[in-house]
């Protein structure tokens, strides 16, 4: 559903932000990208959304090359950023309505919007409240409601739990689990190793634009993800070869 094939991005100033990334997120799977700031996580998401063109390689959404047919590809993907920023002068329902219509949804009723907002845990009083009065947690919930109402099979989440209080983050993780259960393919960038370990079906560690390690949930049961992450970040371990990974 979400796939990167040798995806590379070098900016005009020569900085190599992403170096031959290969990854694949299948339906009903959550893939967590871990890495420090500047590791290339957000660049990867930007490439999948066609916000920037790749230097080489192919980003695919539902088998569609994003660079060649971005509008078609975007029908199959929903996006949630670290800081969900919406139109402050509009109510939660109006924001939901705006993005739902842009996503192609028609004839939705007020009750349909209310139902999705209930599902993500927004309090009833917030439905017709202006978004500028929302806390960050409420905005994140509304952001995930926007993703849910689009009902896209692929989700791109850019550090969605950053800055959330523990309760909100826990609620958010539960929502993601539900989305996985519904068969969504979810690519999530995060700094939060513990959340990643809790929810991810696969984890990739990125460093300086390269994916240096990838583990499945089963593999991680026998390894300490935190120690692996820190070892890679401190430079103690080099990129894992395909052979080593296979063995």
């Amino acid at each position: 559903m979400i796939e990167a094939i040798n995806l590379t991005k070098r900016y005009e100033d020569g900085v190599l932000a992403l170096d031959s990334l290969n990854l694949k997120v299948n339906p009903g799977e959550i893939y967590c990208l871990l890495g420090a700031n500047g590791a290339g996580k957000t660049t990867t998401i930007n490439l999948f959304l066609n916000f920037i063109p790749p230097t080489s390689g192919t980003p695919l959404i539902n088998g569609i090359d994003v660079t060649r047919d971005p509008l078609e590809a975007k029908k199959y993907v929903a996006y949630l950023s670290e800081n969900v920023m919406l139109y402050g002068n509009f109510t939660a329902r109006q924001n939901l309505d705006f993005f739902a219509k842009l996503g192609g949804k028609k004839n939705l009723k007020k009750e349909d919007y209310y139902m999705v907002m209930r599902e993500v845990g927004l309090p009833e009083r917030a439905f017709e409240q202006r978004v500028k009065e929302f806390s960050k947690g409420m905005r994140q919930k509304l952001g995930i409601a926007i993703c849910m109402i689009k009902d896209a099979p692929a989700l791109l989440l850019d550090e969605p739990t950053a800055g959330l209080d523990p309760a909100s983050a826990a609620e958010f993780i539960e929502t993601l689990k539900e989305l996985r259960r519904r068969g969504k393919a979810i690519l999530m960038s995060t700094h939060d190793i513990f959340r990643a370990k809790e929810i991810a079906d696969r984890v990739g560690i990125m460093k300086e634009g390269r994916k240096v390690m990838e583990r499945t949930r089963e593999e991680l049961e026998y390894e300490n993800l935190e120690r692996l992450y820190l070892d890679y970040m401190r430079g103690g371990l080099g990129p894992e070869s395909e052979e080593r990974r296979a063995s």
Partner: protein
Amino acid sequence: MAEAHVTSSPHIPFQATAAPGGFRAAWIVARRELVEQLTSLRFLIIGVLVLGLTPLAVYVGVRDYTNRLEDYHRLATAQQELRAGPAGEAVSGVWNLEVLRAIRPPEPLSALVHGLDARLPEYWDFSPRGIRVGPLASRPHRLADVLGQLDVEFLVRVVLGLLAILLAFDAVVGEKELGTLRMTLSQPLPRAAFLVGKLIAGAITLLALLAMVFLLALLSAQFFGLDLLAGDPLTKVGLIAVAASFYLLCFYALGLMISSLAGSQKTSLVILLVTWVVAVLALPPLSTLVAQAVSPVPPVHAVEAKKRALDEAIRQEAARAMGEVYREETGQDQMVSMRLYQEHKDAIDRRIAPIVTRYVGKRRQLLGELDRDTQRRMARQNEVARIIMALSPAAAFAHAAADLAGTGDTYAQSWWTAVRLHQSRLNAALFDDPPMVTMWMRNMSMTLRRHDPPSITDLPAFTPPRRDARAAINRALPALGLLLLYTGLFIAGGFIAFSRYDVR
């Protein structure tokens, strides 16, 4: 669904909802933007300001117009009386030339677009020496002097022009800073549709306010006693409103373009405000100053004095030559007598005819050169001013509005053309063959009546320039074309800039 280009992921049976088409997507963006704009503080403040100032501006304009209309009626009545009296029966000499006067009526639409209407002459007189310019139509201590150039055109150009910029400066870069641009463009929304949506919203907001301003202006004019609600004036007001729409769209498109190029809202606002100040406030007066420096035109009274002195010199020369003819034909050099003239009339008339022709020819040549030089300088000055003002959409709009209202530079030029044409027709019909001439001999002079002067009804009538809507459109076409060009350029620039916009 479009063809999948590369497929290596398994394709799950998901039925994507059809994304909205280009125009529908643009309309979704436009509706949201429209609500945002119409409820914004900047729109409310400027809207209240402009709607509050409109009746005041119209009141000033109507007062000024009615004052000038009174002056016009006074002059026209005096001329009618003159034509009905002895002066109307025969035109000769200099004492009754007022009967030939071309009186310019004030333009009713100057109540909305002052333009040059009050700064053009009230009338032009025609004389053997050429055109004599009457006083300016403006009155001292007018209310307009106190309030400056406050008219509907000013409100649109300055105040609504500012609103167009304030609505557009953050339309793109503001959404980027807020973070909503990423959210919006993560949807299957073509970038062009996003910008078209912004354009539609801005156009509706600005045009709605513009329509209110013009409606209020027309109703205010009616209330203050000036009927503009029918016929040509209403058509012209409609055309001015169309020009104003292009102008506002032009500034809004400029705002979108800068907003798609600037790195931050602050930068966008600063660039646009500086552009607004230069284009709207600085360039028009600056263009006049530069044009005056490049091609100075001597003041009217100086040219008139020079013409009088020249004419006097050649007239005296001719009068002395005719006195010599009188002396030779009558043998009398101590006194001039009408009886002696009548006795030798045929011989004297035959011999002074070439002198009169030479005098008229020389006068036309010398005074004509002076006139042509002044006209050349004035034309060059106008050309320089127009070239500099072509750099500003605000100046293009001011020109278009004034030309459509009949208060513009082009309309003023058409008056001058009509006046010059009339002077040349009067030269042929009257001044080139003067019925009376003066001869000088020693210290004596005598005015001879060579033949009967033509009746006023035999002289060509003055034809004022056309004032209908079609003529107004023709006059305004260059400025309107320039305005359209600017609007098109800024819209195209906005689309190009946004197609390459880095939304990160």
